[in-house]
């Protein structure tokens, strides 16, 4: 296969036909370049999407309360429903079969102060298991624990951005901050992949929050995590039973659609996953489209190149070149050019993607990437089609009788 003389002949041809070489090389390089860039950006879009929508645990039911819309059992309509600590224990007791963990959430805005720095943040009074529901990642110190809840300790776990705003470079752990005029000790700092907003929260024990509000037993909303193994249908059944149970407990008419709201994250998840897969389909489609455009481009160039060379190939044949050697020459040349330029295009595209990183985050493109096997595969496909596109006209040119090829125009 390897023949020094043949390669020398090919190199000479390439060297002396710079425009032709440039055209076919450029087409392939551009094709692969655009393919990788688009595919990478598409993946970046997918990354952002995942981050926005798929960052929390997915086996959750969010239970919120509202006002009733119908009178029931002597109660008037428009009665505000509220949850209490009691409800947490009851749900835990009745639904232990489905339940993985449960946490209340009491959301309050508060002015938070450290020395001279202050700002308005959202505090969440929660139980320790809230960490799993939000997939909170503690980077420093610890999260809330059961002792904090039981002893109603004044401790807080603050978000990365809260820490940055109030403490700057200082280590916040062990420092005391002022939350709504009550002094809390910072025990942990967390980050959250859900974006900046999620990192502006401050978590405190829900019991401490209740104590601050005149020792109330009320809680805002309840987050229930079911066991993942019960599956989507199990989750739906759980949701239904839970709704009935709470309506009965709170004296809400069974037909009343207000009063209690349960949001099933697994439904959201399903919808978001569908959206994500639609995005994947679009990215793939764009990729294939670009690749096809590249293939058509290189095919055109190859047809043109061979057409241009018909006479030369005729001369070569008259001088004793066999049809096989003519085809080989054309193919070897085209494969050589497309391989080199294909990998050049790939190299630059991958380089650009690598350097883009998070710079396009404002445009919802985060960390665009293409896995290398996809890039190689696309490049090989383009080379292969370039070769096929060259082979067909080359074979035809090689089978034209030399007299026809040499006939004066």
């Amino acid at each position, binding site marked *: 296969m390897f023949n020094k*003389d043949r390669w020398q*002949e090919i190199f000479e041809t390439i060297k002396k036909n710079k425009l032709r070489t440039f055209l076919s090389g450029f087409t392939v390089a551009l094709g692969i370049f655009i393919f990788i860039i688009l595919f990478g950006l598409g993946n970046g879009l997918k990354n952002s999407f995942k981050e926005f929508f798929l960052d929390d645990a997915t086996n959750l039911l969010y239970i919120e309360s509202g006002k009733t819309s119908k009178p029931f059992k002597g109660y008037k309509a428009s009665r505000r429903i509220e949850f209490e600590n009691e409800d947490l224990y009851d749900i835990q007791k009745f639904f232990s079969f489905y339940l993985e963990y449960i946490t209340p959430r009491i959301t309050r805005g508060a002015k938070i102060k450290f020395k001279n720095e202050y700002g308005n943040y959202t505090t969440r009074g929660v139980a320790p298991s809230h960490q799993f529901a939000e997939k909170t990642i503690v980077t420093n110190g610890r999260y809330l624990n059961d002792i904090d809840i039981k002893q109603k300790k004044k401790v807080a776990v603050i978000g990365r951005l809260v820490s940055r705003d109030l403490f700057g470079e200082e280590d916040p752990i062990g420092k005391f901050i002022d939350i709504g005029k009550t002094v809390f000790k910072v025990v942990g700092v967390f980050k959250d992949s859900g974006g900046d907003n999620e990192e502006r929260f401050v978590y405190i024990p829900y019991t401490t929050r209740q104590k601050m509000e005149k020792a109330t037993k009320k809680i805002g909303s309840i987050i229930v995590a079911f066991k993942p193994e019960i599956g989507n249908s199990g989750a739906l059944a759980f949701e239904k039973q839970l709704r009935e149970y709470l309506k009965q407990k709170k004296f809400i008419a069974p037909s009343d659609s207000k009063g209690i709201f349960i949001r099933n994250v697994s439904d959201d998840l399903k919808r978001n996953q569908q959206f994500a897969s639609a995005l994947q389909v679009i990215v793939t489609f764009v990729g294939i489209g670009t690749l096809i455009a590249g293939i058509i481009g290189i095919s055109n160039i190859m047809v043109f190149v061979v057409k241009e060379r018909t006479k030369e190939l005729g001369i070569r044949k*008259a001088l004793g070149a066999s049809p*096989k050697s003519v085809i080989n020459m054309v193919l070897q040349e085209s494969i050589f050019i497309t391989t080199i330029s294909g990998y050049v295009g790939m190299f630059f595209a991958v380089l650009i993607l690598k350097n883009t990183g998070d710079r396009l985050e404002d445009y919802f493109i985060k960390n665009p990437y293409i896995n290398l096997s996809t890039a190689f595969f696309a490049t090989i496909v383009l080379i292969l089609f370039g070769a096929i596109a060259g082979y067909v006209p080359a074979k035809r040119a*090689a089978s034209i009788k030399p007299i026809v090829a*040499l006939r004066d125009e």
Partner: protein
Amino acid sequence: MIQLEDLHKSYKIGNSSLHVLKGINLKIEEGELIAIMGSSGSGKSTLLNIIGMLDLLDTGTYRLDNVEIKNLNETKAAKYRNKFLGFVFQSFNLINYKNAVENVSLPLYYQGIGRQERQHKAMKYLQKFGLGNWSKHLPSELSGGQKQRVAIARAMVTEPKVLLADEPTGALDSKTSQEVMNLIQEINNSGKTILVVTHEEDIAKMCKRIVRLKDGIIVEDKKIKQNLIKSNV
């Protein structure tokens, strides 16, 4: 050297077929310089193409150096052309991106001869034909006469048994025509068999034998006294 017996050739044009060669019988000895003459459409170029294995015959026999040429596939024809025949065309047919010496050495490449030797042999022929100083020039930088001499050098570099020239002076003025014919005569004098297709009487008269074709048959075949050109170029 060449024996043709009852050679027929026709081309299909649409539904009808055009009978171009209608039974050609021709015997060419080694060392002859033979002109094939005829008006356009007489079949002279077709005859040359068949002899040159650029085209296939329909019926009849063709012997080259006592070997019958038949059942040629492209690969075999290419090999024979390369080994036994040299071509000179009216429009030179040099490869335009290769310089003179590269053009001349191309047939040797297809014989599988090494680079050094190719270069050496090609230079030898270029020098022999007075083009030593032009070896690195591209065809576009050469005059018509120079181009044709490069083409002749390319045809001769494989030392073929027969040199076939299709209107070699068709694109040249009369002075350069003389030069080229002089070269052809010199090559012939060294013992090479040469066929020249032409429609010009004075070119034909520089050969040793004239074969006239009309409507696909030989109407005249006579040996003449060669009009030798004085080698003053």
